[in-house]
């Protein structure tokens, strides 16, 4: 029986007029990589800050490891690893000194700490840079340092707030793999992002939030089932007539078809071999076509269908 690690109930947080969190309910279970997906300003950081008792909130409750979290809940905090959205490292200390400092806030034993710090350095791949000062690191390396500082003490719960913002693809992959490793080693992970691809790639369960409200929750498969689209087929087509487009819309399982800039997009729900039927129709009507590819729905489609707007603009 897995026990919930974090339980957020009816959480409301207001900044003056602005309601940043609007009766938010979340439950994060042990062993999950829980993704909090939402566009900029949707309240992800605010929610994280409440979980860490960095903010006072107006209503609701936040329980971590079964206890209400307070600013002085040090026994809870010692099991949490934090990677905040704003990189928080000492510019005056080297990579190694930084990790040692933050690890030392949790681990008093010197020998053990040394081991942990070295493991963290290894983990984020900063071995060559231990003597560097943060200002000499690239954006991606700096993020990795930020992560190393947050996880070196091997916490049971790891909270990462947009750890991959402004990071090159190489560092990003390294970070994502790292998060999966940490999870495999037994840590529960909360991961916020507005990149759906990332969340889709690593998270076992996802909550989508918008304007401080949870609009959907589940595994990525569950989320995708919530919407009509099952399959999107893109075909390069030249000279498709209006009649032909409406005939295409009549095909079984097709519920929508658009044609613009020589690209035909067909949305299907359910059914098999949809692509074959469409191509057959085009051949029979002697419409020439080029590249063909199909796409499974993304979380962006989920977000689009529920809110009527793109996740990212």
């Amino acid at each position, binding site marked *: 029986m897995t026990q919930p690690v974090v339980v957020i109930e009816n959480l409301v947080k207001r900044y003056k007029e602005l309601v940043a969190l609007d009766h938010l309910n979340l439950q994060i279970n042990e062993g999950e990589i829980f993704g909090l997906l939402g566009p900029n300003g949707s309240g992800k950081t605010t929610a994280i800050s409440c979980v*860490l008792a*960095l903010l*006072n909130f107006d209503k609701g409750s936040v329980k971590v490891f079964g206890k209400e979290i307070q*600013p*002085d809940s*040090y*026994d809870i*905090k*010692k099991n*949490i690893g*934090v990677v*905040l959205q*704003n*990189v*928080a*490292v*000492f*510019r*005056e*200390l080297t990579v190694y*000194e930084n990790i040692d*400092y*933050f690890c*030392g*806030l*949790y681990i*008093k034993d010197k020998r053990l700490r040394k081991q942990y710090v070295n493991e963290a350095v290894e983990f984020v791949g900063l071995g060559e840079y231990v003597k560097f000062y943060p200002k000499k690191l690239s954006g991606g390396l700096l993020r990795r340092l930020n992560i190393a*500082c947050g996880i070196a003490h091997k916490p049971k719960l790891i909270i990462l707030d947009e750890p991959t913002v402004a990071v090159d693809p190489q560092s990003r992959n390294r970070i994502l793999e790292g998060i999966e490793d940490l999870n495999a080693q037994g840590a529960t992970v909360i991961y916020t992002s507005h990149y759906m691809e990332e969340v889709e790639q690593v998270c076992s369960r996802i909550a989508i939030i918008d304007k401080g409200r949870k609009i959907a929750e589940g595994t990525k498969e569950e989320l995708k089932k919530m919407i009509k689209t099952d399959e999107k087929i893109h075909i390069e087509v030249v000279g498709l007539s209006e009649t032909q487009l409406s005939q295409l819309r009549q095909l079984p399982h097709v519920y929508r078809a658009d044609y613009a800039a020589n690209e035909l997009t067909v949305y299907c729900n359910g059914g098999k071999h949809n692509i074959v039927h469409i191509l057959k129709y085009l051949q029979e009507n002697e419409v020439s076509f080029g590249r063909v590819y199909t796409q499974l729905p993304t979380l962006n489609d989920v977000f689009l269908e529920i809110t009527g707007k793109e996740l990212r603009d």
Partner: protein
Amino acid sequence: MQVFKAYMKIVKKKIPSIIVYFAIFIGISIAMTQAGSESERKDFAQTELKIAIENLDDGELSKALVDYLQVNHEVTEIPETEDELLDAIFCRKLDYVLYIPAGFTEKFLAGEREGSLRDRKVPQSSSGMFADSQVEGFLSTLGVYLDAGFSVDESIKNTMEDYELSVEVAFLNGENAAEKHMAVYYFQYLPYIFISTIILAIGPVLLVFLRRDINARNKCSSVSFQTRNLWLIGGSIVVALAEYLFLMAIGICMYPDYILTLKGAVGAFNAFLSLLFALSVTFLFAQIVKKENALNMVSNVCSLTLAFLGGIFVPLDIFGENVLKVSKFIPTYWYVTANDAIAHVTKFSEITDPIWHGFAIQGIYAVALLTLGMLINRIRARE
């Protein structure tokens, strides 16, 4: 402990800039010490005051008084206008102005001896008081001779003779008393050095830890707010103490005859209190200020204000009464006052009230500012 260790690492990296600040402020202090001590010593060494006299009386007594003053001082006419007069006093072109009203001699001989003379001077100035005491002394001696039945001429003659002798004696004593030990000046400048260098050396380190991102990250950890703060204050005290001991060691090398006595020990304690005050100021401003540049400004404004108004750079006796009223709100005023008084201490029982008051007031300031700093810190912690 972790906080303390990081604190020290950061301090270590800032040592070059700390040494530069230190050298600059010690340089300024040495320059000011020399300028200050010379001008002050001149004040006393020079008996010759500049006195302007308006004499509307035509009797023998007023003439005698003017003659007497002329023997030892430079006597001039009163400037034409009030503005010129005030200017002259302000710029110390005149130390003392004496008005002798018509009928002064007559009144004096009739026994009406108080309150007919008027004078003007720089309030509380040593030169002004010196002139006052000469005029009063001369007239009261004259009065004694007259009362004793001497004729007017004889009384004047005797008084003149007395005074020509005693002035020299008084003057010699005065000079001895006025000559401050150089160690007193050394101590006098310490608060200036403490305030300017501690704000600049410790302030930036505190700012690092109070920076929003680092502070938020620290708050997520399992080290409590109090513990983190205590280590920060501990680190600051260690750095400040190192500076204090260094300056005391220099003092001992330069003036062992003063500092290795009871006065020296009491003076060192006084300096220690001013060190604590400097630390509290730093802690407070670190909470308010966000950028290191702003700290430079704060350091300059604070140290100069405290140095000038507190009487570190300029002797307190040139201040007018109103300025002095303001000065009394400034802890360095109490430091300097205590420091001057400490120079006369030879045994423990001679630690007088001004010294204790100085200690108490500096201590109260240090505690008050630290508390205020803590309060702001607390409030900011819950933002």
